[in-house]
Every structure is written in C-alpha cells, then in structure tokens.
C-alpha cells in the first residue's frame, strides 16, 4: 500500500470527532461522583462513544489518525486532572487500534468494530491510580467525604483492575456494533457515509 501523508482535512476530521468524543466522555465522567457509577464509566462511556467513533472510522484512511485522537484524549485527561496515565495507555492502545484497523485495509467493518474495542482501553488508564496506589489517590480527595471513600474502596478491589480492562474492550465492541447499526440506519441512507 502506498504510504500517504496526513493532510489538513484528515487532521481536521480528527479534531472534530475528538471534540464530540471528549464532550460525551466528560458528561459521562461527571456521573462518577456517585460512587456506584465509577466502575460503570468503563461500561457506559465506551458504549455511547462507539457511535461517534464508528463514524470517525469511516473517515480514517491513513495511518496515524487513530493514534493522534488517542493522544489527544490523554492530553485532555491531563488537563482535566485525571493524571498522566491515560496518555501512556492511550499511546499504546491507540497504536494497537491503529494496527487492528490497518490489518483490515481501513475498510473492513468487522475490524472497525474491533478497533472501537481496542481504542476504548485508554479509558481504563484513568483507573490505574485507583489500583496502584489507592491510599495516595484518596489522600488527595479527602474532601469528598469518608463515606464516598469507603464505598468506592469497597467496590474497587484489586481484581476489578483486569475486569475493567476487559469491560472497556467488550463495551467498546458493543458500542461499535450499536454504532454500526445506527450508521446503517441513518447515515448510509442519507448518503453521508
């Protein structure tokens, strides 16, 4: 395959979809302040974000676009105070997602659904500090109240770490499937895709 450089239009597409994606993630993340929703973010966010992400994938034809979006998500998380873990995780998962989609020649719908799953791993990155150093995590969040901390500690034991990782992938795939169906229903008919 000929190696093509990303042009301005591709990069703008990345920007547009990143903006939509981030707004949705941000709204959902606000739910996390009800303790029970905290692990559920890893479930709800990938499912809903799968819809714009699948539309984004139809615009992806060159190497790098998914990776850039992943890095931008990490940057935005850094700026919104979620720590630097998402950038590291995002760089790796973005590259993996890129590889998955590339293996389908940037066309395959099945691979696109898988890509949506792999891409969602970056969300799991936000939870890493909860598992590696939970005491430190809460020492900076004393003002949430002791009850919040207790509840969250009890629903976030160490085995939740791999569970959330898998949940992110599975829900990303579910989101991808929903996105695929919605796209067929709305966008293909309207001629947008």
């Amino acid at each position, binding site marked *: 395959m000929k190696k093509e450089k*990303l*042009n*301005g*239009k591709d*990069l*703008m*597409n*990345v*920007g*547009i979809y*990143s*903006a*939509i994606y*981030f*707004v949705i993630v941000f709204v959902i993340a606000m739910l996390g*302040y009800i303790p029970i929703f905290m692990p559920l973010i890893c479930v709800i966010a990938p499912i*809903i974000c799968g*819809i*714009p992400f699948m*539309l984004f994938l139809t615009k992806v034809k060159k190497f*790098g676009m998914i990776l*850039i*979006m992943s*890095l*931008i998500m990490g*940057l935005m998380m*850094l*700026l*919104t*105070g979620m*720590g630097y873990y998402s950038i590291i995780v995002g760089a790796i998962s973005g590259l993996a997602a890129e590889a998955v989609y590339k293996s389908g020649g940037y066309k395959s719908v099945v691979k696109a659904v898988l890509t949506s799953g792999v891409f969602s791993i970056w969300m799991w990155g936000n939870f890493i500090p909860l598992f590696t150093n939970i005491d430190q995590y809460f*020492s*900076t*969040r*004393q*003002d*949430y*109240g002791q*009850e*919040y901390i207790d509840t969250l500690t009890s629903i976030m034991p160490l085995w939740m770490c791999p569970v959330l990782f898998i949940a992110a992938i599975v829900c990303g795939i579910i989101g991808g499937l929903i996105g695929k169906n*919605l796209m067929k229903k*709305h*966008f293909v008919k*309207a001629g*947008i895709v």
Partner: protein
Amino acid sequence: MECSILQTNIEKRGLVFDPRTKLLLLLTMATFVLGGAGQKIGLGRLVFSSISSCLCVLPFVLLLASKKKKVAFTYAVLYLVMLCVFIFVTPITKGLLNFLILGTAGIITRFLPSIVLGAYVVSSTTVSEFTAAMLRMHVSEKLIIPLSVMFRFFPTVGDEFQSINLAMRMRGIGFGGKNVGKMLEYRLIPLLSCSVKIGEELSAAALTRGLGGNVKRTNVCEIGFQIQDILLILLCGAAFFLLILSTFGML
C-alpha cells in the same frame, strides 16, 4: 446577536494573556485544585491547601480583568456559598444527608474553579492565537490542527446540542416523556450529522487559508509574554517547585 460565554469577542477583551500562560495555568489548576496534589497530613497540607485556595481566586480575577463581570460574580457567589456549606453545614449533619451535602459541596468546590477557568481560556483565546502559541512551542502540525479544530468546535458542539435538546424536548423525547429509550439515539445522531456538515464547511474554509499545505504558514497574531504573564508563570512555577520539594520530603 447575543454572544455565548464560550465565544471570543475580540473588541472588548480587557487584559490579554499569552495562550501559553493560560495553558500553564490550566495545567496548574488541574494538578493542584482538581488533582489535589501534595495535600498530605501535616505542614504540607496547609501549604498546598493555601496554594489551591489562591488558585481558586484566580478565575475570578481573570474574568474581571477580561470584563466579564457577570460571570465573575456568579462564580464567586456560587463558590463561596458552596465553601460555606462545606465548612459550616457538614459537621452538624449525619448519614445520608451528610453524604449528599458533602458530596455536592465538595465536588462543586473542587470542579467549579477549573471549569470556569477552562471556559475563560476558551472564550478569551482566538483560534489564531492558539495556533501561534502552539507553533512557538514547536508542537507538530499533526497535533496543532486537531487541537485548534477542537478549540473552535467545543462552543459549536455545545450550541448544537442545546438546540437539539430543545427540539427533542418539544417532541416529548426526554426523561419526562414516554420515549426515554430513544433519548440517546435521537440526540446523538442529529448532533453527529450536523457536526459532519459543519466539519466539512470548516475544512473547506481552512483549506482556503492554506491549512495543510506544504508551505510554512505565517500568522498575524502578536503573542508574547508581558508583565502579567510573567507574574502568573512565577506563581505556577512556585507551586510546582513546592510540589517537587514536598515529593522529595523536604517540606
């Protein structure tokens, strides 16, 4: 035309800061106020709580300096009320009520400053200035373009979402109506399809301005550090310096 809070109005901006300073400020805010860095027990806690309180006053000052009095005072009143609730009401309540009040007040006092600062940064920086600042920082164009598009796009997404929301509520698709299940689909899809359209227009507009060409772009925006920038940078620097000191156990 009424101007929304996120849109930039160049004519009456008041005191102008360099975009790089604003970014540094956002990062500092995220680290100390949102992330609550360094707030351990003992002396460090006192030092870093006072740093974070100082930072919470900043959005108010910045908003005043950029002549957005209404927003500034709304922020100040809301923040102070929540802080008072947090300090005076929480010790005398118990159980679920305490949990609710503590949660709301704690979360609002923690998030409000950063959200207001974020809104201030987006509303007071033009895309051009932002691009110029990123170019000065030698960020790759592959990151500059998506980021500046995002910058430009946040207010649009907000506006569109509000209009769609109103339209859907009129049709009875919302929490109150019968069609709760359709809520998501009927909001996301219109949002996506209008974003696609706006996006296409945006790229056409940007291509006419030479974005994505092979030539190095020039920029008419004059950005640079002024006295007000240096003051803010010193403040942020001091906060991070103290954080480093405390990490190595010297505080």
